[in-house]
């Protein structure tokens, strides 16, 4: 937001603007005054102003302090700026302030408060009775306002997903205590003021009057409050819908439209078209219906996107099998129908099982001579069983050619090493079915 050259041009003017700045914080087009989040002792006004005017923050603080002497302009300006200047977004914040700056700031604040009291006492412009309640009240208000700033920053942090409730709740216990103390201080200030001004006999009456007024104002403004809350919620849900729509549009663009364009280009090559359509279908399915799919709710939709883009990062057996089947489909141009019953997290032995199953699917794809392979996995409490089946030409297990022998070994070897079992059912013309059985973790071997 800060544009260096503009700031320099205005420097000469701005130094004399310090006092009037409160009235026209937007005097420079395109540059708004924001309260600083990092250079902050009370409300971040001085820090923000310093950044805005491009002068050392110490000067601004000193100016506020000294201006207290002239008819309380300093505190008044500070409070007004706090009210009207918004908080700076965290990403725009300058480097953190160091300990020295903090000490100076606190010292100046204390000095300002002292000056305020001393001058009031000396000048007599404000009677004694006024000083204590007003100091207490202002202190309480400052606490409450700081909490409001905190709540706003929390909201930014949470990606603007919290609504009205984010302002009231959601904070830590500490935050709530601070808020409570602030409110009590404000009430205390008012109470003290009343106590000193009103004769004790009248206090109950005054309290009742105040209460009645508050209730009256509350009742009158109820529709307004309700509308405010509703508008906020409406706006929030509209924003969420928009985000969702954008997400869907982006996904459709990235995957479906691209694939359709590719398919048009490859129209002469049916094999390529089938391959593209198949892999796109699988991707979309994962996105829509997969274990971490889009339908599982907004929070996980992003993960699903990642999962679809990086298919190697799977966590459960179901996903692992889906990935293995998809890879074989893409590589060997066959369709693999997979059915998985139950699910469980992956471990070393299940990884071996999936690798063995993948090998079996590859075998079927390469040698069966048909374009379809069925994969069925059942996860039971004690074992996981995977069936890989094709209706192809089959073979005679006793007369396996060299190359297939090797592959069968790699399946069988894997299963044996991890305590699994392999059963092979095949004969020429009858298709092939490989049954892989792996015990689950409980009675672990390796």
């Amino acid at each position: 937001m800060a544009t260096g050259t503009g700031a320099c041009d205005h420097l000469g003017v701005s130094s004399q603007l310090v006092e009037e700045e409160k009235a026209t914080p937007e005097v420079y087009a395109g540059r708004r005054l924001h309260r600083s989040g990092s250079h902050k002792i009370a409300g971040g006004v001085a820090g923000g102003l310093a950044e805005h005017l491009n002068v050392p923050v110490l000067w601004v603080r000193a100016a506020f302090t000294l201006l207290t002497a002239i008819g309380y302009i300093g505190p008044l300006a500070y409070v007004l700026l706090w009210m009207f200047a918004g908080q700076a977004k965290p990403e725009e914040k300058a480097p953190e302030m160091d300990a020295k700056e903090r000490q100076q700031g606190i010292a100046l604040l204390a000095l300002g408060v002292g000056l305020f009291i001393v001058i009031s006492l000396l000048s007599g412009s404000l009677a004694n009775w006024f000083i204590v309640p007003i100091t207490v009240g202002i202190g309480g208000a400052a606490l409450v306002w700081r909490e409001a700033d905190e709540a706003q920053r929390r909201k930014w942090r949470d990606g603007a997903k919290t609504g009205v409730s984010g302002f009231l709740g959601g904070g830590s216990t500490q935050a709530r205590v601070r808020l409570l103390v602030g409110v009590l201080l404000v009430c205390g200030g008012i109470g003290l003021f009343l106590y000193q001004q009103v004769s004790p006999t009248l206090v109950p009456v005054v309290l009742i009057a105040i209460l009645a007024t508050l209730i009256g104002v509350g009742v009158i403004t109820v529709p307004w409050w309700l509308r405010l809350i509703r508008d906020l919620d409406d706006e929030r849900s509209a924003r969420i819908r928009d985000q969702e729509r954008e997400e869907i549009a982006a996904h459709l663009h990235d995957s479906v439209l691209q694939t359709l364009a590719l398919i048009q280009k490859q129209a002469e090559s049916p094999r390529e078209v089938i391959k593209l359509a198949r892999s796109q279908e699988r991707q979309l399915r994962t996105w829509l219906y997969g274990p971490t799919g889009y339908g599982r709710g907004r929070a996980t939709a992003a993960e699903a996107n990642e999962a679809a883009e990086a298919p190697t990062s799977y966590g459960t057996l179901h996903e692992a099998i889906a990935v293995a089947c998809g890879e074989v489909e893409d590589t060997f141009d066959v369709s693999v129908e997979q059915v998985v019953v139950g699910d469980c997290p992956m471990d070393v032995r299940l990884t071996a099982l999936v690798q063995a199953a993948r090998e079996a699917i590859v075998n079927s794809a390469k040698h069966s001579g048909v374009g379809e392979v069925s994969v069925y996995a059942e996860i039971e409490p004690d074992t996981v069983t995977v069936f890989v089946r094709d209706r192809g030409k089959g073979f005679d297990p006793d007369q396996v050619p060299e190359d297939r022998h090797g592959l069968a070994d790699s399946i069988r070897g894997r299963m044996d090493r991890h305590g699994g079992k392999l059963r092979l059912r095949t004969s020429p013309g009858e298709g092939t079915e490989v049954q892989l059985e792996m015990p689950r973790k409980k009675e672990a071997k390796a």
Partner: protein
Amino acid sequence: MTTPEQDRKPVRVFLVDDHALFRAGVRAELAAHSEDVEVVGEAGSVGEAVAGIEHHHPDVVLLDVHMPDGGGAEVLRQVRPANPAVVFLALSVSDAAEDVIAVIRGGARGYVTKTISSQELARSVRRVSEGDAVFSPRLAGFVLDAFSERPGAAPIADPELDLLTPREREVLRLLARGYAYKEIASELFISVKTVETHVSSVLRKTQLSNRYELSRWATDRRLV
């Protein structure tokens, strides 16, 4: 796969799908099996479907699961009470167990995915029209999953409906493994008719069981 079928009448089929492109595709595919299957009408919305089915009285309705205004389940709800003779076969791209179980419980006699070959589709239509159930491997998987015992399951209220017999389980497993009825029959040393009986019985249980799991399982997954 055929008995003396030369002289039998083609099955009258009604298509319900909100995508005109897909209806045209199915029509074209089934045209190749015109001696077996005849498309008598089609509809693109729930309202059209209800009116069309009342008008044509087809033997089999090929029903899409996902449509505006309530989808296939809504068509089933509106048509079935008045037309008990009409048989429904769900045809969907959806992989969501919830959808599949919903149309089966709504009264569909089977479930096939849209990637099914035209020959297989014609055969499935013929089979449901004859009163059998059509279980794709995926549907078999869903049903097995729905009836599986898992920790924290609700008590079984009616063993007759809430449990699968070991034989039914075996049949379902083989279906899920991609076996055809004939293959299942020879695998288990039973007749094809017996396989059909088992599958129909599983279908009935899926439709009627009040087992808490059937619905809870689908909502747990929240696949759609």
